[in-house]
């Protein structure tokens, strides 16, 4: 840890062993909860405990090895937190599978698919770390990602592969696989915004006129990004994917604010959002329904059955929860996906739900920390964008399930059943780790200044 006074830069420790320790704890949480579900429902440990447990441990440790190999200086907290959340999500989905089966419901099982998606997600995680050795390379493809995001968003509207589920046209179907492109578009859009804003930030911040106390940039500077955002949100609105359009809008405003360092953008964004929400309420019946259901779900208990049962589930969980396998989360429609947070609250209680929320908070604040310490503007912006969109997503979905805000329909990252969400969130974590690795890696000058011994010490610790 100690370095001679000559060393100019802060040299972080790698902390890979600490990561491994936390990771083992996270794996224990996942496998332990899996065993607890079996005990809670059948009174015995599930038969698949060894195989499923081994698969999960191998997958998680594989991710750890990849981090050691490809991003040795990366943040040590993110991976264990994600593995813990993913394990809890898998267990809860498995538990609801059993509940749905006992009910004779035609749904499920989802857990096996979720495990497969998790494996695929971790493979993508490893691939991102292995292939993108420097995140700044992404900056070269700024417009490609922008275009890619829009193409992705248009896909569900196209015939044949487009697929409407539950009133939202946000899925594409390719043979047996269905995919929600908005999740991928989120990452592409964050890269596009970051790359574009880095290139134009001076122009955006300095050139332009002052209108009503806000410095507006020139149209040609703001135009492309505004267009990109408008198209995205427009498509989503017509696909009735309120959650994603809200998320993209927030992402856009926040990144603009961070790039230009002008709080005025937040004000403008807030006003635009209010106007958009009002327009949505006035123009779209489904927006009005969501809003009314938020104000008083009991006014129409049949229509708002989902949110009401979710609230009953949370209340039934109380402080300590019913325990794994001992509540009735399968009663809540989509308690394994959109409403998995209420399932967590029911079986793990307020304590467990708060732990999950804090784990999400840890991911966000670690991500923002990576942004703070990142030395290049692109990486900084990208880390902020990914972290804040993650935070917004959690806020929107958790707030919706708990009736803090109207329900808009987003997935709880790493918990909810759904392949696109799992894969894309693993990619987000990989990108954050990549930026973090770049940030914390000692600058080449440092190693030349300090002697070989010094470097050696740094590597060992």
């Amino acid at each position, binding site marked *: 840890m100690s370095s001679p006074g000559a060393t100019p830069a802060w040299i972080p420790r790698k902390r890979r062993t600490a990561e491994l320790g936390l990771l083992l704890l996270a794996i224990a949480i996942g496998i332990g909860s899996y065993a607890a579900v079996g005990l809670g429902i059948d009174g015995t440990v599930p038969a698949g405990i060894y195989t499923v447990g081994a698969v999960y441990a191998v997958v998680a440790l594989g991710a750890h090895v990849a981090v050691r190999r490809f991003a040795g200086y990366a943040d040590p907290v993110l991976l264990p937190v994600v593995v813990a959340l993913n394990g809890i999500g898998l267990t809860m989905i498995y538990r609801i599978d059993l509940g749905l089966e*006992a009910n004779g419901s035609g749904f499920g099982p989802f857990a096996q698919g979720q495990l497969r998606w998790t494996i695929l997600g971790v493979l993508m995680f490893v691939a991102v770390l292995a292939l993108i050795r420097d995140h700044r390379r992404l900056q070269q493809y700024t417009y490609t990602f922008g275009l890619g995001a829009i193409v992705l968003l248009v896909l569900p509207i196209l015939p044949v592969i487009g697929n409407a589920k539950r009133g939202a046209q946000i899925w594409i179907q390719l043979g047996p696989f269905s995919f929600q492109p908005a999740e991928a578009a989120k990452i592409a859009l964050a890269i596009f915004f970051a790359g574009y804003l880095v290139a134009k930030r001076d122009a955006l911040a300095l050139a332009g006129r002052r209108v009503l106390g806000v410095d507006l940039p020139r149209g040609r500077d703001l135009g492309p990004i505004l267009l990109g955002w408008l198209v995205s949100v427009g498509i989503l609105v017509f696909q009735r994917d309120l959650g994603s359009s809200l998320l993209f809008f927030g992402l856009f405003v*926040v990144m603009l*604010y*961070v*790039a230009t*360092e002008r*709080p005025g953008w937040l004000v403008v964004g807030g006003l635009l959002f209010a106007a958009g929400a009002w327009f949505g309420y006035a123009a779209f019946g489904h927006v009005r329904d969501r809003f009314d259901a938020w104000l008083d779900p*009991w006014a129409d*208990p049949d229509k708002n059955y989902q949110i009401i*049962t979710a*609230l*009953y*589930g*949370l*209340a*039934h*969980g*109380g*402080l*300590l929860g*019913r*325990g794994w396998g001992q*509540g*009735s989360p399968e*009663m809540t429609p989509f308690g394994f996906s959109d409403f998995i947070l209420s399932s967590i*609250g*029911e079986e793990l*209680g*307020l304590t467990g*739900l*708060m732990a999950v*929320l*804090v784990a*999400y*908070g840890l991911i*966000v*604040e670690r991500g*923002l*920390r990576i*942004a*703070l310490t990142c030395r290049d*503007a692109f990486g*900084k*912006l990208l880390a*902020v964008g990914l*972290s*804040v969109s993650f*935070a*917004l997503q*959690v*806020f929107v979905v*958790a*707030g919706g399930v*708990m*009736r*803090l805000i109207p329900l808009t329909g987003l997935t709880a990252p790493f918990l909810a059943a759904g392949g696109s969400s799992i894969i894309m969130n693993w990619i987000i974590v990989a990108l954050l780790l990549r930026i973090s690795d770049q940030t914390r890696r000692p600058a080449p000058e440092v190693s030349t200044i300090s002697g070989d011994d010094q470097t050696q010490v740094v590597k060992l610790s």
Partner: protein
Amino acid sequence: MNKPVRAMAIVCLLMFLALLLNANVVQFVQADDLNAKEGNRRVIDEQFSRERGAIIVDGEPIAQSVPVKDKWQFQRKYTDPKLYAPVTGYFSYIYGREGIEQSYNDILSGSDDRLFVNRVIDVISNDQPQGGSVELTLDPAAQKAAFDGLADLGEKTRGAVVALNPQNGDILAMVSQPTYNPNALASHDLDKVTTAMRRLENDENQPLINRGTQTTLPPGSTFKAVTAAAGIEDLGLKADDDVRGGATLGFPGIDYKLTNQGGSDCGGNPITFERALEVSCNVSFGWMAGKVGQDKLAEQATKFGFGSRPLDDLSSAASRFTADPDAELEAPQLAQSGIGQYEVAATPLQMAMVAGTVANDGVLMKPRVVRTVRAPNLSILEQPEPQELERAMSASDARELNDMMVAVVDDGTGSPAAIPGVKVGGKTGTAESAPDRPPYAWFISFAPADDPQVAVAVLVESAQNTSDIGGGRLGGPIARSVMEAVLR
């Protein structure tokens, strides 16, 4: 760009704080309200899945939860279901709860605050929460005697029997006929439950009603015990004093005469107070009600418990002296009220309380049906002490009336209730409701008169086996067998 990043970190922190706060609001602050919402199937399911405590009579469970292999794990079972249904009530997934199952639900389900420590232990040891038990004051022999007595009157009989211990208020028997089988409503086969409930609800004889506490009907001549109490207390009458007799009681300026049943003249005019009670002379008590006055008579009724619902544990109706307490009765109405007609209406429980109070030297004890409430580990949570509700009469006046009621059984209309070797007091009643339907038969009694162990009220609304209904003839033997069961 670090300043806005820090700002976003704070914004995100605030968002997560809002979520954490919101989770606390829903899962802690609002949890009780949400759990209490109607139609919250989770709570119903959970209570169904618990090992609910037993309802116990004389050491034997009459309602208990037995393990079964379905998703609820426990099935509520009632032994002698029809016998005890008016008290136990039912525990149904669809139709909720009734009776003790309802009033002691917190204890039986284990959610009572006093069981908090047990619940914490259950959580730690990963045991299923268990409910506490409720032991009733019922005497199985008396309950059986009352049930059989009503059943012997025929299948379509509607009636009720309430017996209590005058000295401590313990309810010894509470039977209602027709009755129902709570097992049918507690079944886990929900279709069968719905069918059973529909049949019970459509039954014109209303088997779900606990006639012992919920049905108020004119008590007829049994109310003369109240009028007599007022006569003794307020007019200073003694058993040997002369009172108005004869065949009719007229009212100046009003074209109505109060007559006796069967048009008899009660054996002369005047007759002694005691004789008037023995033969249940309407003229005498109509006259007495006028002498006492509406206010004093209503006050005496109130002292016996009219106008209140003293039994907290079961849903019950208040008995009444007048429909509107402020209304001024005209002379004939007051006279009719004095013989338990006009707007006077009482539950069998109320009339058992009247008999019990006379027997207990004028002290009205609070009726109760629960003796002890225990936690799952059998430690006692609640053991109500006998509670004095009211001194309805002075002790000496009560003894005067007590002797007169013994005379009713020894020498008067109450003779069917006589038990050899035991001093029994009683009063018959035959109440008219509508001209087109048979009158109600009432009988109240107590024994032994000098050390009262049991007071009984019998109501027979309608009986299949007889067209000629009379309180003494129908109710007397039932009361006698209940008293014998207690005294044996």
